[in-house]
């Protein structure tokens, strides 16, 4: 007689029951849906649901369930035609404050939903979409910071009444040239008092001057870079919102990289244009005293000014002082001026930007102010046989408008040619809020048709491999083989359930991992059964052979699986993206297969043979 403790039966039933429940959502398909969310990430009020319903009934579009959560309102449709028409109608009437995106909503029945059972998340290679890895140019972030110190230092020295020869950026430092040692000591005191937390100050002698060399404090530099990265992530979120993507992923990776994943995006060129625009903007006063054409012709540029060109290649002189930059920009929206009806762009600045803007405009009513659009284009040069990656700065004046009255936080720019031009300017301004230039260093795009093919081929190979193994096991081990097949099926259910519960992403290599697990999972049963056969050959009774087979094979199975697990875990730690998916399914498969192959098959075998007093032979 072989007995199997009731608690193990209970455990088995509970585990497999849970497995079935959590694997179940994957059997239901998806409903076409439209998702409405806030452009700025605000919480959505329940009233929005009514508004959405109103828009849809006005447009005469039938819709299914509407779900509201603080992050999004999701409207289901019976077919994609209705979905597309609804998205168009909603886009038109919801305005700039909301992102309207196409989505697929899992049609999980409510009772499963209530249990927290969701279907597996499909990776980009299965559902199609874009994956970008962006490298943030931290050197450029430092240079920008150094340049802003130059004007800060000039102000400090001027306010203190210290005469200086020059303040300039020299590689990774700022160098201040002063006329005498006394001036320098005084300057040092002021600089340390004002910027001592951020800058390290040292002195050195120039050929005829006494100099200060300022380097950014290491800890502060890291803070700047971390802030730059965070700012860039925020900007990327805003840009992605423009694209109307349902479930984008934008996260930091490592110290200076950002991952952007846009599921379902088909127009990758557009995505790249919007995301990869490595640009910023600056507001500067227009130098009205001097003639830009003359400056261009003679090459003599008045001190305090800088020569720029506008979009029509016309020269224009701008002050060296920056009033506000992309960092200060909170929003820019195109619209129409309420009085004149002309197209305009309404800009909102943050506190610091608003203060400087108010200071400047109070003194400069009637003068022009220009917006400079600065783009960083990636470039590769060869220096001493080594490739150097850098970014080239391209500057262009995109608008120069007369200041009519003092303003600060919110102001509008009018005098634009058309509504399209206004929309373009608004987009450029919004795109301009990058703290440091970025470059796409990796792209993986999968078209929707390939995604579907990958799913089909992946599942086909799982099924075919699975059936082949089932047939072989049944022929070779007869009844015991059928029991192993039950375990293998349970194993597959458990892997799917665990993947769904963990919210792990299923990728194509992940499916390959499942296939491989199916092939390797029977190993535990093969080990046990071969051992049972051996015990039988040695003349042991069937019952004793079963017991001995399970017991003696256990340590072998454990050892063999732990080593495979080591490989899978290392793969998980080092792998990126899809490879991680392979490691996840392989690890999960190893753990679940140990359970189903050892506990599961033994339970069933005991059910079949355990109760009988006399077993003449085993069908193995």
């Amino acid at each position, binding site marked *: 007689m072989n007995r199997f403790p009731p608690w193990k039966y209970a455990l088995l039933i509970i585990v497999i029951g849970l497995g079935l429940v959590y694997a179940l959502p994957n059997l239901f398909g998806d409903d076409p849906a439209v998702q409405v969310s806030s452009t700025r990430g605000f919480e959505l009020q329940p009233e929005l649901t009514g508004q959405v319903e109103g828009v849809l009934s006005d447009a005469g579009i039938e819709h299914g369930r509407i779900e509201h959560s603080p992050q999004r309102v999701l409207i289901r449709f019976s077919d994609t035609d209705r979905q597309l028409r609804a998205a168009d109608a909603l886009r038109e009437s919801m305005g700039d404050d909301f992102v309207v995106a196409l989505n697929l909503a899992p049609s999980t029945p409510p009772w499963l939903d209530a249990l927290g059972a969701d279907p597996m998340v499909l990776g980009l290679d299965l559902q199609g979409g874009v994956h970008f890895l962006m*490298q943030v140019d931290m050197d450029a972030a430092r240079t920008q910071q150094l340049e802003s110190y130059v004007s800060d230092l000039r102000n400090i020295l001027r306010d203190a009444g210290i005469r200086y020869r020059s303040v300039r950026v020299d590689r990774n430092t700022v160098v201040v040239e002063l006329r005498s040692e006394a001036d320098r000591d005084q300057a040092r005191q002021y600089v340390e008092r004002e910027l001592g937390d951020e800058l390290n100050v040292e002195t050195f002698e120039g050929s005829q001057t006494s100099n200060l060399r300022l380097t950014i404090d290491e800890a502060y530099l890291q803070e700047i870079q971390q802030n730059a990265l965070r700012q860039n992530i925020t900007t990327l979120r805003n840009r992605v919102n423009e694209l109307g993507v349902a479930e984008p992923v934008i996260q930091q990776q490592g110290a200076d990289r950002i991952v952007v994943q846009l599921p379902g995006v088909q127009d*990758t*060129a557009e995505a*790249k244009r919007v995301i990869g625009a490595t640009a910023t903007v600056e507001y500067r006063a227009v130098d009205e005293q001097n003639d830009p054409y003359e400056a261009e012709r003679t090459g003599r540029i008045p001190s305090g000014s800088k020569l720029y060109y506008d979009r029509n290649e016309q020269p224009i002189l701008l002050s060296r002082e920056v009033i506000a930059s992309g960092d200060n920009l909170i929003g820019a929206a195109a619209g129409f001026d309420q009085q004149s009806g002309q197209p305009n762009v309404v800009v909102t600045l943050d506190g610091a930007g608003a203060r400087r803007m108010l200071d400047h405009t109070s003194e400069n009513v009637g003068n022009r102010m220009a917006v400079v659009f600065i783009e960083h284009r*990636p470039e590769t040069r060869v220096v001493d046989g080594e490739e150097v990656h850098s970014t080239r700065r391209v500057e262009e004046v995109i608008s120069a408008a007369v200041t009519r009255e003092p303003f600060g936080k919110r102001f509008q720019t009018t005098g634009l040619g058309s509504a399209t031009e206004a929309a373009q300017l608004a987009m450029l301004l919004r795109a301009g809020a990058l703290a440091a230039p970025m470059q*796409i*260093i*990796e*792209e*993986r*795009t*999968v*078209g929707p048709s*390939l995604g579907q*093919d*990958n799913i089909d*081929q*992946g599942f086909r*190979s799982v099924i075919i*491999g*699975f059936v*082949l*193994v089932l047939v*072989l*096991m049944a022929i*070779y081990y007869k009844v015991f083989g059928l029991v192993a097949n039950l375990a293998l099926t349970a194993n597959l259910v458990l892997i799917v359930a665990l993947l769904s519960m963990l919210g792990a992403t299923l990728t*194509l*290599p992940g*499916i*390959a991992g499942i*296939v*491989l697990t*199916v*092939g*390797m999972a*029977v*190993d535990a049963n*093969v*080990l046990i059964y*071969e051992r049972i*056969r*051996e015990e039988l*050959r040695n003349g042991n009774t069937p019952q004793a052979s079963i017991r001995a087979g399970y*017991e003696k*094979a256990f340590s*072998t199975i454990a*050892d*063999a699986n732990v*080593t*495979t697990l*080591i*490989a899978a875990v*290392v*793969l998980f730690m*080092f*792998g*990126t993206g899809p490879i991680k998916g*392979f*490691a996840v399914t*392989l690890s999960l498969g190893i753990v679940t297969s140990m359970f189903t192959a050892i506990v599961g098959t033994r339970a069933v075998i005991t059910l079949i043979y355990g109760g009988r007093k006399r077993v003449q032979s085993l069908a193995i």
Partner: protein
Amino acid sequence: MDIIKSDTKINFLRYHNLALVLSSIVLIAGIFSLATRGLNFGLDFTGGTLIELHYPEAPELNEVRQTLETAGFDDFVVQTFGTARDIIVRIPADETEATGAEASSRVLEALSAGVAELEMRRVEFVGPQIGQELAEQGGLALLYVLIGVLIYISFRFQWRFAVGAVGALVHDVLLVIGVLSILQVSFDLTVVAAILAVIGYSLNDTIVLYDRLRENFQVKRKCDPMELTNLSINQMLGRTVMTSLTTLLVLIALFYFGGEIIHAFAFTLICGVIIGTYSSIYIAGSLAIKLGVSKQDLMPVQKEGADQPDTEILPERFRNREA
């Protein structure tokens, strides 16, 4: 039904010298191929741009090439991919660098101008710095797996077994990479994943054999290591063949039905499973013996848990005398 007769007594190790010669030949051929031709590194490691396109009707490859030349590309490869209607365009890193991520957009623009229903299936762009990092990570991963295995087996068995197992692993990995080089299979990230899985698999096989060897050392009176190893291999033969067979079955399914992208991955695993099975029979066992595994080495190892064959291990106080 038995595929393998239940009581085989094949003297596997009689051929172990032959096996060593065979392994050496393939190994040398592989290393020679690695040295002369190298691996056919995929985009993941070389950097560059790859675009997979689906045409409504099979395109003339020369026309595609001409269109791209007119668009200003001069260093690129155009190939069919799976079917005649699917093509891939590969642009190497040095050409890509000037344009960065823009190259793919330009290719798409140039080619879709002539064909209205051109479908973009896949774009991959890997910057040069990423390629280098991925290569480093892949190498490190292999190294860490080997170290992890060495530690685990030393702990569970004995250092001679650990060295034997790792020796067999290195053998397997070198052979697989050698075959990949000889056949110039595209070596990308999924292949690295496959090689790591091969390590897991081949190890699995080796461990199963060592486990049996350990048991036989403990149970059997005669202690000629050679004979015991042979016995263990024969005892495990049914299992080894059966497991290899099921694994190969699913891999063949993956190879034929998993699609073009998973091809190299499945192929690597198929090679790995075959080589791994062979090496656990011939290499792992004979390595452990050559390193001098003996009964003494194994006696003190205490197995834990329910699997304890309690009647067969002598009580502690007799153990040294017995040995």
